[in-house]
């Protein structure tokens, strides 16, 4: 589904990604772990297509297409959805409106008829329940005045509604208390399926005790220095990044 080959990228003058190789197949859950400054967020933004992140080498293929040929909105319509570390507050745009526009943009892209408000509300109500969110969230401006946990729940709500092929979650666990972490994890687990891939980008192991990954990769200084199964996360928990980074060097 996603093939990253020797990806290099920089932000302004700083070289951040120094050659990343990663393949993600349908049905798999990958965790990319790494200390602060290792390039985790840059990787997410490069895959999302954010301005200011310059790809200097390598390739990324998504479902056989060259990802860098696609605008951010095209990537989303093709099925990559990025869960933001810091979801953006958008005053004046109601949550329901964003969801509906995004949902219909995708349907249109696939040549399907757009959903009307009634059908759409029915769908969203169901997903709200999973995320333990009150319906009033729909009528509030996107993320405005939401707590940290509510913002992250809102990100997962969007995932549940938009059902991406590849969910890319950037530090979705940061700033969550244990109850919110459970709800968010439950939402992500609902997304798991044979034809969907999930990539969790995280600093901490604790998310992985709720969402069990098939593969764990350690990112350090812009490279994946070690990959393994879920036991690698436990090893990290015990020895910290330091041990693994030294071992790799």
């Amino acid at each position: 589904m996603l093939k990253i080959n020797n990806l290099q990228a920089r932000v302004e003058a700083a070289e951040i990604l120094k050659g990343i190789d990663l393949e993600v197949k349908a049905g798999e859950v990958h965790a990319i772990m790494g200390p602060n400054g290792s390039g985790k967020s840059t990787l997410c933004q490069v895959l999302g297509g954010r301005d200011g992140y310059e790809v200097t080498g390598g390739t990324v293929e998504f479902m056989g297409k060259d990802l860098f040929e696609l605008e951010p909105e095209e990537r989303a319509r093709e099925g990559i959805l990025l869960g933001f570390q810091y979801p953006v507050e958008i005053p004046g745009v109601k949550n329901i409106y964003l969801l509906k526009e995004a949902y219909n943009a995708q349907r249109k892209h696939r040549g399907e008829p757009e959903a009307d408000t009634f059908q759409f509300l029915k769908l969203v109500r169901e997903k709200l329940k999973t995320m333990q969110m009150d319906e009033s969230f729909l009528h509030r401006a996107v993320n405005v005045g939401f707590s940290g946990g509510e913002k992250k729940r809102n990100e997962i709500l969007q995932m549940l509604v938009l059902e991406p092929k590849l969910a890319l979650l950037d530090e979705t666990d940061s700033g969550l208390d244990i109850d919110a972490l459970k709800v968010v994890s439950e939402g992500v687990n609902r997304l798991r399926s044979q034809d969907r891939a999930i990539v969790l980008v995280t600093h901490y192991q604790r998310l992985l005790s709720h969402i069990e990954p098939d593969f764990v990769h350690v990112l350090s200084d812009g490279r994946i220095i070690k990959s393994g199964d879920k036991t690698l996360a436990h090893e990290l928990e015990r020895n910290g990044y330091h041990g693994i980074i030294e071992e790799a060097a």
Partner: protein
Amino acid sequence: MSTNALSQHYAEQVQRLQDGLPGAIPEWLAGRRHGAAARFSEAGFPDPRQEEWKYTNVRPIATKPFMAAVSDAPVSEEALRAMGFEGLDAYRMVFVDGRLRTEFSDLGELPAGVTVQGLAEALASDPDPLEPLLGTLAHDRFSSFAAANMAFLTDGAVIRLGKGVRLERPLHLLIVGSAGSPATWSHPRVLIQAGEGSEATVIEHYADLEGASGFTNTVTELRAEAGAQLRHYLLQDHADSAYHVGSVFIQQRRDSRVTSHNVNLGGRLVRHDLNVDLTEPGAEIELNGLFLVGGRQHVDTHTRVHHSSPHTTSREQYRGIGQGHGRGVFKGRVLVERGAQKTDAQQHSANLLLSPNAEIDTKPELEIYADDVKCAHGATVGQLDETSMYYLRSRGIDAEAARGMLVFAFADEVLERMELAPVRTSIERRLAARLPEAGAIDVIG
């Protein structure tokens, strides 16, 4: 001779007016009109060297030979309906080229204690009760446009609410210009006297019939007595070839509350002055404004809030959007008098530029002579937030639609303060139609 001297055309209009003032009008009115005509002649049109007109050159108005309409322009009910607000249940007065057209007006059954009538009719039948109302808040020294309005006064609306009366349905004043040739000017005047504890909503709504390119020069005088609650909509949706100068004067007494919604969508050259005087404790004003300038439009709004008594409150939020070669100006002055302690004044001006050729100038001006007050102001001019754009696009929404959503949301933060949903919805639609980027806006929820 001053450089502002009136052109031959306007000098003649004034001369004709002074020759023709009918003897039947009461002396007080004749005096005020003569005085105003003299002041208009003497001052001429304002010029950009005057601080208050620094950003707005009214030459296009001064150099056009506008004339009063000579006869009633043909109007269809259908055209009026298209300009109105779908679903709004309101009393209606329609003015065409400044003159009341009773055949299109509907004042239904007004509650006891409420008088609504045409100004020309009121002056003809029983002028004296208007002596304390007409031209007493709007000093024609204020600007030569206000003077011209008084001098050329023809018609308008008089709204008087008795003590404790509540007008349940809003009153919609639809004031339209016609495609006269030569282009017409008109000088509507709106007088609102809200008695103690009364309550009403008045929509002052300017628009044009097809092909109009006239000049509307309005003056509104609004008095809110103790405890009165007034909602005043000032909606300007003229043709893009039309000219408009409007001056609003609001005077508020103890514990009165006035909400002003001022929306400017149309017009070639538009200037509004909103003057508020909070004269007694507990008086509260809310000023909400939105302007959109595109093409070669120029819209200038000056607000002046005068806290002349302690314990008075003002909340002001103005937003501007510039696209094309549009030019917007907002100047907001807040004056807190010595002794007006516990004044609470907040002013915010936010502006969005969508094109490199658009320009918006915003200038807050605080003048405070009391020491125990809360005053805050902020002004911004910027472009659409890149992070928000990226966030929306990352959800599959294309750049154009995302831009439309953000611009619309920016404007809607002002519009959502409107109490009348049919007016708000209709304005939202008109706004969306004028925003090329926001074509696909449909509002749900």
